[in-house]
């Protein structure tokens, strides 16, 4: 990590210089992750900015972002390494044509076939075997979508910082990558993995911070509009919707409004753009039943 941050404030400032406003809790967790060199496990509702943490960390620290998107059935060949089979086959044919494949050279041929030259590094191996000046940020996104077997493997990598490719040998990280693991909590991540990590539950931001985030992320948003959107979204969050909107939706909504040339939230323009913030028909219905006018009136007076 070169020079690690000296304090929690430095982390918060560094991230905000890269357009990410953190809470004290998240900044502390990130600071500890960097100082103790522990993976950081972020859980929280969809759209609260978990993935964004890793991206911002990378741009702040000037390191490379390596992303591993997890899904059901992900296995070693997609997450760790794969051999470049077409090139291996070509190499074999060439060797055969030049007579290298026969006789005593078989062992040599096999060695050359399974050498780093034909190794395709997938995100995990890439992050472990890096030779970057600053260790890369490894984002393991939505780990809850992967299955238990993969999680167990991940645990091994995150504890030892090494990966063994049987044919080549063991890759060991000179400097371990900075690891951010995110989960939407569709199932519980295994305790053993949790113990390896620092844990932070990412909350929806409070009102003032959400206003700041909207202003920072939406070009040309009027200050009054940013406040109104934040207030309206905050209201949406406590009327019991299926999917309470996250910050990502607040930003989308303000972008949509700005694009339409709106500088103050009104029932008509809110109605037209509701699809940017509420993505269930039932949720839209619920907000209308509750009274969109009322929410907007409240938001405007806040």
């Amino acid at each position, binding site marked *: 990590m070169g020079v690690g941050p000296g304090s929690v404030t430095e982390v918060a400032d560094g991230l905000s210089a890269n357009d990410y406003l953190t809470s004290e809790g998240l900044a502390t967790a990130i600071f*500890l992750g960097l100082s103790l060199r522990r993976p950081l496990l972020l859980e929280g509702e969809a759209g609260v900015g978990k993935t964004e943490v890793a991206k911002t960390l990378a741009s702040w620290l000037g390191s490379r972002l390596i992303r591993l998107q997890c899904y059901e059935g992900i296995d070693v060949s997609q997450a760790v390494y794969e051999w470049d089979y077409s090139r291996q086959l070509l190499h074999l*044919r060439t060797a055969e044509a030049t007579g290298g494949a026969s006789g005593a050279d078989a062992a040599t041929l096999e060695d050359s076939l399974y050498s780093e030259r034909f190794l395709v590094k997938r995100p995990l191996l890439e992050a472990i075997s890096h030779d970057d000046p600053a260790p890369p940020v490894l984002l393991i996104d939505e780990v809850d979508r992967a299955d238990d077997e993969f999680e167990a493997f991940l645990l091994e990598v995150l504890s030892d910082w090494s990966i063994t490719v049987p044919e080549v040998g063991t890759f060991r990280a000179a400097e371990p990558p900075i690891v951010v693991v995110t989960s939407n909590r569709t199932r519980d991540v295994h305790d053993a993995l949790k113990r390896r990590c620092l*844990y*932070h539950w990412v909350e929806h931001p409070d009102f003032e911070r959400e206003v700041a985030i909207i202003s920072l992320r939406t070009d040309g948003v009027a200050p009054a509009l940013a406040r109104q959107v934040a207030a309206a979204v905050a209201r949406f969050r406590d009327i019991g919707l299926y999917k309470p909107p996250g910050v990502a939706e607040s930003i989308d909504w303000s972008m949509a409004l700005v694009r339409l040339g709106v500088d103050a939230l009104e029932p008509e323009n809110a109605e037209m753009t509701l699809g940017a913030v509420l993505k269930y028909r039932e949720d839209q219905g619920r907000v209308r039943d509750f009274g969109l006018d009322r929410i907007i009136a409240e938001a405007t007076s806040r």
Partner: protein
Amino acid sequence: MAQPPSPPSTPAKAAEPSGEDVCSLASSFGTALREAGLEVSLGSMIAFVSSLGCVGVESRGGVYWSGRATLVHRPEDFDSYDTVFARFWEGIDPLSLLPPPPVAEVTLAFDDLDGDGADGENEEDSDTIAVRYSPHELLRDKDFAECTDAELAELAELMSQLRLGGVMRRSRRLQPVRVPRGRPDLRRTVRRALQAGGEPITRSFRQPGEQPRRLVLLLDVSGSMESYARALLRFVHAAVVARRRVEAFALGTRLTRLTRELSTRDPDDAFDRAADAVQDWSGGTRLGESIGIFCDQWGVRGMARGAVVVVLSDGWDRGEPAAMAESMARLGRVAHKVIWVNPLKATPGYAPLAQGMAAALPFVDEFVEGHSLASLEELAVRVAA
């Protein structure tokens, strides 16, 4: 819970503490958390002490968030952590912050099976003795182990032999196949080519394997289910330990996840844990609402998606039928199959007239009995079908 030895009133007062002080304070804090029911491993404690070394103990926020990041691993524990933190580091008695606990009120409610009888709330002169259901939440920590009789134990033994298979679905994970079908397995092909002097004579293939679908069991533990819930819990336990990808929840006036508690193999141990976890055992019923909460917090996010969901309930619901219909509709939209197990269904002349049951039925794929071991065996077959 034991009071920690002379807790400092604020961390700020512990300016310039020695490393030893920090260690012993941290370990007493860890002990206090364990007493409050959190699982704090030694590794977490070490991480916590190292964190304090990085962040310092001068600010409340630093200590608080270091502990949250290292000692707590799930949102359910945040409240306990806050309470212990306040008491330990700030010397605040959390009980003084809470409103006085509400006095539990037991209401006898009469409900005839036709479901259309007069609403019998607070009928003191009613001769109904059985608590059918109560609109008030009865928070009781009931030890149901003492109610088991020999027969139930015997049944439990038989239930543990029930195997709930699962409907299979295609997995994305590829498996080697012998016949040339699916996608070429180049890795294996190259390996074999080496043995043949570099000529890929035998080609290998892989194709997607199969995975059992997730099974989600929602057990109604309200008062009206009292005579069945215990036996059905044994069934749920048997299902949870029998195979992977099974999740269990208790439905009452609240939703309690039981998967962790029930994943212990020893049935008695599992029951004790489950009884501790379920605070509204034999309490009131807010079935539709609880199913809605399940959808919000777990189901729609992913747990019920493509899963076989089994609701074990008699369908008595104190809430609005509309809420039940809405929750079941959502569940039905994401689940592969919804099976409703109703122990009352076996009663001669039973018709699903309870409002909750009637509201739920249109969204149920299969409606089965669940009053006896035989019917549960039947259920096991349906789950796998």
